[in-house]
């Protein structure tokens, strides 16, 4: 049984996120948090872009708002996104981690501590090593790890790095990730 899904993406991530999110059904049962690397001065365009293609509500995270099932929360530009033990969202302006703010490792780390085995982590396309340590931590805490197949990724470095660091249970082509998530949710019931 899973409660939450965390996704990290960097270069090429907009398109990859669109593919994954558009494949999730309206009744998707997990709370979803996403870190997409971006310039620290970006506006909220990404949330609007993804909301238009995802059947679930998509928004930029506000500090201390509930991390609700069936909704998608994006880390705002220039803020780390973290999950608190009482399952609310929290932001920080701490220094960059892996040269990134928001950082995928920061989100994954905090989510792993809160959700343990009830968490799925996904690393998508990118040119960064961010997400590798976080995905490893998710696995150590009993969660499930999925990495986009580097062979088909727009930029293979980040998924390859995550595979090396975390030895994920699932390596999947981009188009297969949403169906895999649904399968995992169904199996776990």
């Amino acid at each position, binding site marked *: 049984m899973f409660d939450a899904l965390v996704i990290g993406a960097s270069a090429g991530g907009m398109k990859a996120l669109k593919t994954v999110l558009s494949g999730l059904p309206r009744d998707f049962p997990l709370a979803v948090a996403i870190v997409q690397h971006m310039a620290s001065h970006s506006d909220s365009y990404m949330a609007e872009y993804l909301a238009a293609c995802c059947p679930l509500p998509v928004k*930029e*995270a*506000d500090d201390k708002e509930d991390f609700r099932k069936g909704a998608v929360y994006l880390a705002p530009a220039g*803020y780390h996104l973290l999950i*608190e*033990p009482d399952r609310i969202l929290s932001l920080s*302006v*701490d220094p960059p981690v892996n040269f990134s703010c928001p950082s995928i490792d*920061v989100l994954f*780390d905090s989510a792993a501590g809160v959700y343990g085995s009830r968490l799925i982590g996904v690393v998508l396309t990118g040119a960064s090593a961010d997400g590798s340590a976080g995905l490893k931590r998710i696995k150590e805490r009993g969660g499930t790890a999925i990495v986009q197949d580097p062979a088909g990724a727009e930029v293979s470095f980040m998924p390859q790095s995550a595979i090396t660091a975390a030895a994920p249970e699932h390596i999947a082509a981009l188009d297969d990730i949403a169906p895999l998530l649904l399968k995992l949710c169904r199996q776990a019931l």
Partner: protein
Amino acid sequence: MTQPPDKDRLEIELLLDGIRRRYGYDFSNYSHASLMRRLDYMRDQAKVTRYTELLDRVFHDEVFFDKLLKHMSITVTEMFRDPLFYQAVREQIVPLLKTFPFVKIWHAGCATGEEIYSMAILLHEEKFLDRVRIYATDFNKYALDAAQNGVYALETMKQNAANYKAAGGKNELSDYYSAGYDLAKIHDFLKEKVTFSYHNLVTDGVFGEMNMVCCRNVLIYFDKTLQDRALNLFADSLRHGGFLCLGSKESLGFSSVAKLFEPLDAKQRIFKKTGENRKNV
């Protein structure tokens, strides 16, 4: 619900309680996730594996505690961070403040001072700085010293200048600092209207009769209980009709004082105090 094992929680509680009772700093209502990242970092710095060992070190080693204190408020900011906020202050708030003969502004949690000088520059350009007193406070003496010095890495000024222009700056940012070696020193006339002082939002009280309170990206480090305390403090410190400015992802919604405020610019998280102060609190 998956919780950290009880022993871990107890260790953290003991550590925070020890810090509070030994040094008077209470971090127990800080946001857990960020707090844990910082404590884990300090635990690594101390080269120990347990929080109780970290407590031992912190308790007996004041120099190490100073390091911890410094680390507890390391954040990243820029001058004119969120340029649209400063544009809103310039266009929406300053004209209203100008109806007063003299204005008091409180920057709570001023950190290393970038936002203080951004505000001072803006007020100077609006020919209003002479009628303003800015109270800059922080709980961290290192941050406060840095704010008072007003010396920043020259390399940060490129981004700061871009923000300044995007915020509607009327001159050049370089008009406001002198550069030497790889440092930029803020001109003294911008500091003359600023009073720097120690204030801890966790434990200290009201700062009276303010026309405006700025507290941006500080509340994100607090849990809802402590946010509510700080927001009550701000409400009690503001005059009727005064302005409260929060960070772009912070909200009043969870607080008991929400009903005292109306949004002036909801997107920039600028609120106007329209309700009455609570009595006998």
